[in-house]
């Protein structure tokens, strides 16, 4: 971030959205793993607007000169995690909803596993984007 010289708001909203997204999914994982299904589902609901903020900020940042480096590994990886990760997030949300409606332990395990996978994907994305891989 110290090296970034573009406009303030796009990157600020992108990073803020990503951090809130990470925190909301982390809260969901902790709640679901502890058996608090409804709390886990509600925490994942907070993750959805955070994803929109993160993705919107990314697109806005990209429009400020990043198209010149669109073939860089770090940028492609970040974009793929942002877009592909939405599927994982929505599947986690669906599993958490299923879990709180039915109290099915398999649904809880699925929701927790998907949250863990999504947190790992987010970590890979921030490592790649900060370290400027490739």
């Amino acid at each position: 971030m110290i090296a970034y010289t573009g406009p303030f708001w796009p990157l600020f909203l992108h990073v803020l959205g990503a951090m809130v997204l990470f925190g909301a999914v982390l809260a969901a994982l902790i709640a679901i793993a502890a058996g608090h299904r409804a709390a886990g589902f509600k925490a994942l609901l907070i993750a959805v607007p955070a994803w929109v903020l993160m993705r919107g900020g990314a697109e806005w940042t990209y429009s400020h000169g990043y198209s010149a480096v669109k073939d860089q590994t770090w940028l492609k990886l970040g974009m793929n995690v942002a877009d592909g990760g939405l599927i994982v997030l929505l599947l986690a949300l669906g599993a958490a909803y299923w879990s709180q409606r039915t109290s099915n332990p398999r649904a809880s395990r699925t929701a927790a596993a998907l949250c863990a996978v999504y947190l790992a994907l987010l970590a890979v994305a921030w490592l790649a984007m900060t370290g400027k891989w490739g």
Partner: protein
Amino acid sequence: MDTYHWLLTLHVTAAFLFVGGSVAAGVLNALAVRAERPSETAALLKLVRKTLPLIFIGVGGTFVFGLWLWHQAHYGIGTAWLWISLVLWAVANALGGIGGQHQEHARKLAEKLAAEGDTPNDELNRILADRKGNAVSWAAGLATLAILALMIGKP
């Protein structure tokens, strides 16, 4: 990767743990405030503790790697936005600690009430809705947000 990018990666990772852990704690606290029974409130406030190791690693990491980056990126000793960030970092931690004590007080009362019949209680509701206690946590969040703004904006 060169030394600068390694340090930046570690600093940003610590920032994610600090802010993300704080957000997770805030979400669990907000859900605890809205819980109907004291046992639910107590259980959700207890879960906040699970975020603390991440927050502590983040707090330490942002400080250590932040200072190292200051040196590595050749910013001067008088760089105002870095000094302001350091002050805000200390303020956020102090306020976060005070907010945490308020949550602990609420958790202990909720656990006591859960063991004594688990019915809604006015005193617990008053503590959970206490403006002063909640304002401290919100102020800690705002200080953290201001640090993020300074790191990106570098005024």
